[in-house]
């Protein structure tokens, strides 16, 4: 009986020990040199970036050991007394990186081995897994950083802005304003970034890009701008909306100008829109997708119409929802 309970105790200990095994240990198993690719290279590059030995250009993705990385490794080796400091990330360099990262879990060093495995428990903010660190939003292309919007559009230097996108890093994003020296920002959810407009920026329009472990958000088809000004106007906001019997929709809000565009889930309004600063009027039948939708619905369906107003000062951040029959 005693043996039986002893066995059970040992079994339980094994189960518990398995359940508490750390899972975030990063292992450098291979030598890295020019032409190397993969997550080891990503981790090395992140390390070099955080130590200011490497500055990744905005359009270059992490994960390829090129000439810039080789020079950065050489500089880091020289600074740490590793010879020869030629940019080859081999056994000696891997051992040194362990001491710089600290908190070694295990290290198995075999002088005759070419693989020279070194396992280190790395700080989460430094070498975390790329998928976990920069999660992809549902439905978006994995392994890419994408930038969709900066809000608000018009801002003062020093104002906070929110960036929407996908693949933002929880630990290290570089936000470029017209490719200027980047500001560092972190994301809590991978899809939004809170960043302040640099106080050094002069008045004008600035194109934003974000760079991180996935590369750069640079996309010739998508331009994300902010306008830095000392007298910013607020983006349009819609406070209420109503629909009349003749299918005319009246929006009440603020920030409307003489050049508004209406964007809805039934298309855009291509007809002139009357605006008096705080009211805006358009017809449902003028929306670009009204006719093709109506051909199916025949006036029998309840539909929630989502409405944006966009003008030279930006657009409302979240759409206004108005129930209509179509």
């Amino acid at each position, binding site marked *: 009986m005693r043996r039986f309970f002893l066995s059970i105790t040992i079994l339980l200990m094994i189960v518990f020990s398995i359940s508490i095994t750390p899972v975030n240990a990063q292992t450098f198993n291979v030598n890295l040199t020019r032409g190397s690719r993969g997550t080891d290279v990503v981790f090395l590059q992140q390390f070099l970036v955080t130590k200011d030995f490497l500055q990744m250009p905005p359009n270059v993705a992490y994960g390829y050991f090129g000439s810039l990385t080789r020079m950065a490794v050489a500089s880091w080796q020289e600074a740490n007394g590793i010879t020869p400091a030629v940019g080859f990330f081999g056994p000696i360099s891997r051992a040194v990186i362990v001491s710089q990262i600290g908190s070694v879990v295990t290290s198995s060093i075999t002088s005759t081995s070419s693989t020279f495995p070194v396992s280190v428990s790395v700080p989460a903010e430094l070498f975390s897994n790329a998928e976990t660190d920069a999660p992809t939003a549902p439905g*978006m292309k994995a392994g890419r950083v994408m930038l969709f919007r900066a809000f608000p559009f018009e801002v003062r230097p020093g104002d906070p802005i929110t960036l929407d996108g996908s693949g933002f890093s929880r630990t290290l994003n570089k936000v470029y304003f017209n490719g200027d020296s980047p500001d560092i920002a972190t994301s809590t959810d991978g899809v939004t970034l809170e960043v302040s407009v640099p106080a050094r920026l002069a008045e004008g329009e600035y194109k934003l890009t974000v760079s991180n472990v996935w590369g750069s958000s640079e996309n010739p088809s998508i331009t994300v701008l902010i306008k830095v000004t000392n007298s910013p106007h607020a983006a349009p906001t819609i406070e209420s909306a109503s629909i009349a019997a003749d299918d005319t929709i009246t929006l009440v809000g603020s920030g409307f100008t003489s050049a508004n565009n209406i964007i809805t889930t039934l298309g855009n309004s291509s007809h002139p829109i009357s605006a008096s600063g705080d009211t805006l009027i358009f017809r449902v039948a003028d929306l670009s997708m009204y006719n093709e939708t109506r051909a199916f619905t025949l006036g029998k369906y309840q539909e*929630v119409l989502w409405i944006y107003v966009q003008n030279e000062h930006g657009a409302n951040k979240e759409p206004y929802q108005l129930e209509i029959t179509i």
Partner: protein
Amino acid sequence: MRKKQFIAITLLLALLGLLLPVLPAQAQGLPFGGIVSSRFPCTCSATLRIRFNPLYLGGPTVTSGALVYSPFSTLLYANLNIGVPGKWHIGSYLPGVRACWAIITWWLCLPLPTLGLMTKVGTN
């Protein structure tokens, strides 16, 4: 003695069952079916916003609305006529997922509202 051992082993197995990691159930989503009335390319997110009239969401009410097809995450089954007006689509979707961003002006992408993101879809 054997009875005690049986009870102990049963309790142990129950405990092990609690401790073993539980595989997360695959997010299958809610069912939907409908006829495509129109489609709209989400030019920023590279997805497709598909509008259905009518749209059946598994309840007694027939409605209309849009869902997002993502070439990166939606499983597409035969006959591959995704987003073709007049074609029946049936599948499942995750409600409330924002997966359609479209270029509104040359400097601005906005999220276009939908009912959610298709997880799998088949067409006629």
